[in-house]
């Protein structure tokens, strides 16, 4: 089962990446994050069938709850509260972004297959998915000039971390839980509080208004 499903889920993750990176509206992006979160939540079940089943179930439930429900809801609520412009204003165009997404995904698969430093029991698929996701997350933070978009990028980056942490889910489930915790605390509460602060001060969520401190 592992061998069959994993490549597909990895591919799905990559596709969700592409969807997020090419979306023109914040709500679509958030939808993409939801999908990605759900896909990631399934991963522990697929990766480690039969091993410490209860723990994996807990991970699955936590993942679905936080990544699939709480986080996107909170984000959506924030967008509504601060009446943010829904259009994403990319620094780099959508078509290039899509191109970038495809290229980095390919590159990740290539790199992971190329480097044989990882132990045998590691699946190249999910690692390369993690790497591709990290590329996308970083890209979103770099290339989007909207605070919420950057938060979404950060969430995607965290998803990459989560994916990676799944590789130690069996031996050290603690770390996976910590990754999810990070989502909850870091990504949402803090970031959205920050968004509120920014909005109350600047009446805008464009990063442009946050570029006064230079040199």
């Amino acid at each position, binding site marked *: 089962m592992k061998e069959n499903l994993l490549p597909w889920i990895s591919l799905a993750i990559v596709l969700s990446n592409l969807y997020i990176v090419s979306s023109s509206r914040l709500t679509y992006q958030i939808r993409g994050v939801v999908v990605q979160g759900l896909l990631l939540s399934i991963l522990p079940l697929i990766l480690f069938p039969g091993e410490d089943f209860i723990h994996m179930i807990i991970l699955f439930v936590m993942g679905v709850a936080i990544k699939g429900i709480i986080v996107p809801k909170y984000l959506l609520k924030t967008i509504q509260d601060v009446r943010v412009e829904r259009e994403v204003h990319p*620094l780099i165009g959508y078509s290039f972004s899509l191109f970038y997404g495809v290229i980095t995904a390919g590159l990740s698969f290539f790199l992971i297959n190329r*480097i044989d*430093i990882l132990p045998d029991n590691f699946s190249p698929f999910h690692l390369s998915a993690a790497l591709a996701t990290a590329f996308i997350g*970083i890209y979103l*933070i*770099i*290339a*989007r*000039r909207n605070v919420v978009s*950057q938060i979404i990028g950060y969430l995607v980056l965290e998803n990459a971390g989560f994916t990676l942490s799944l590789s130690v889910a069996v031996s050290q489930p603690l770390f996976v839980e910590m990754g999810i915790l990070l989502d909850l605390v870091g990504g949402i509460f803090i970031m959205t509080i920050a968004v509120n602060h920014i909005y109350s001060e600047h009446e805008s969520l464009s*990063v442009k208004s*946050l*570029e*006064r*401190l*230079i*040199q």
Partner: protein
Amino acid sequence: MNTILFFTIYSGVIAFIGLVSLFLNNKKAIQKASPPLSIFIISLLSAAYIILNFTKLKPNAILELLNWEIPFGKLQFGLDSLSGLFLIPLLILTAATSIYGWKYFGQHKQEKGHWLYFTVLVSGMVLVILSRNAIAFIFSWEIMSVSSFFLVITDKTNEKTNEKTMRAGLIYFVTAHFGAALLFIVFFILSNSSGSFEFASWHNLQLSPFKSSLIFILALIAFGTKAGFMPFHIWLPLAHPAAPSHVSALMSGIMIKMGIYGLFRILTFISPYQAWWGMLLIIIGSVSGILGVLFAIGQHDIKKLLAYHSVENIGIIMLGLGIGVSGSAYGYPLIAFFGFAGALLHVINHAMFKGLLFLGAGAIIRQTNTGELDKLGGLIKRMPVTSVLFIVGSIAIAGLPFFNGFISELLIYLSSLFGIIDSSNIPMAFLAVSTGASLALIGGLALACFTKVIGTALLGTEREQFPETVSEVPGSMLAGMILLALVCITIGMGSYFIVPILTGPISIMTGSPNFLNVTLMMNITKTLTIVLFSILVLGLIIALILKSIIKKNKPVKIVNTWDCGYSAPKASMQYTASSFAEPITDYFSIPLNISKKENVDSAFFPNNKWHFHSQANDWILTKILEPFILLIGRFFSSFKWLQNGRSGFYVLYIAIAILFLIVWKFFI
């Protein structure tokens, strides 16, 4: 008592006096007087102590103080005759400048920390001289630089000078630390070879020629920035005028000599010397000697002029050192002996007469509020004692007989003479002749420069009528100057009794000197002393004869100066400093980078006042160094977009860092 311990305690006590002075009230006479007077008394007594004990100084005696927990060995102090030789002028000058400084500030507000910085400077210098551990040396060196930096920036009389002072302070501090940074390297190389930071372990290291040359060059630059020879002199003409005069005296007189001390000390570690070192030293010496005095001639601010004379005199010391080193390298102990002797004696001499001149200049500035030569004049009538003392200093610095400058220059001349005549070595002869000729030219130009200063500032008539208050300075200030003038005359006239102290330091430099050399030096100075005294007697007789003749003749008449028929000579008709220097500055206008301000009305019946002012501009700083620094600054500021305020970019840097590291560690 152990001399090393004595002077270690001395440095502590002096610094403590400075600390106490922070809590004294300057408005009360006794409290104001106590720091300078106590420094004066202690320093004078210590000077007497070291002079009396000079022959008893042991070369290898070491005093260990703390068990130093820094991984640099033990905190060691020592006092050999080389150190002692530098300690003597330091102590005398400290005494003279402290008593002078007592009333120097007069009505002006005295900086609260003035005596603290002063004493810390002194104790820093004492520690530099005493240190026998590289790190202790660097520490004392830094203490010296920092405290003198504070002294440089104390002047804040008005907006315009303040800006200059800040600039001077900055440049001074930066150059001082540039030197210090190179000093690390020097000491690291030495300690790397010996495995220890203690000076004692650095003798007889048997370094490779490359290594010792490297040490020599680095030490030359490192100590050169402190000693201030060309082209590392840039801070000197800025810092000396900025500081209060007695501080300038201390800095110019002895602090820059710490660079020379360091050079001497380093040279003891890297023998055998190489011939080209001597050549380099002689080139440096003659360039900074000649250019230094030329720049001095082009200056019309008295303290700036004196500062350039420090460059010149350091040049003379370098000439002596250079010929000494080449003498050693070519195997002529006689030449080396006299070269080192001249350099060492000139260290003392320059400290004395330059201190005296700075104190005199300070007295003039204090009374008249200006150091511009073209605004002074006729001060000899208002400040007779100061003027005499200033003239004494001038004669001494010009290296003329009867005063100390002549003795040290004579020793260097002798070294050069032996180098030319007695050696069959052709390079040696050329080095020697260039030393002698440079010295002669420097002497001649120094004479021109100081006749200019005396002629325009002290003699003639007042160019602008001074207020009534311009009169002689208080006795305490005179006392400081008189002390130095007495030393100048004593060394000049009684050289026979002074030069024996040179043998100890020379033996440290060259190994024990040939007995014949010492005897030769003693014989020369003995005859010299006799001859000088007889000339003075002759002069006295002639003066008495002339006096009686004048008395016998018609009574003396006092009239106006005869000006070729012009009946009403005015003060403004006098030759100014700029015009006095004009032939020389014109002739050397290219290296001096002269700027002229002429205001000439060419009408037949000129209405406007004619005005002529020339100024030598130091091009090393303004034409080379500052543009270079600006260029670097511009290069740097072309990177300022890196911090452009966009968080996206900042995250990009992180990504790049990760990618870079992965590529570097896994794909290369």
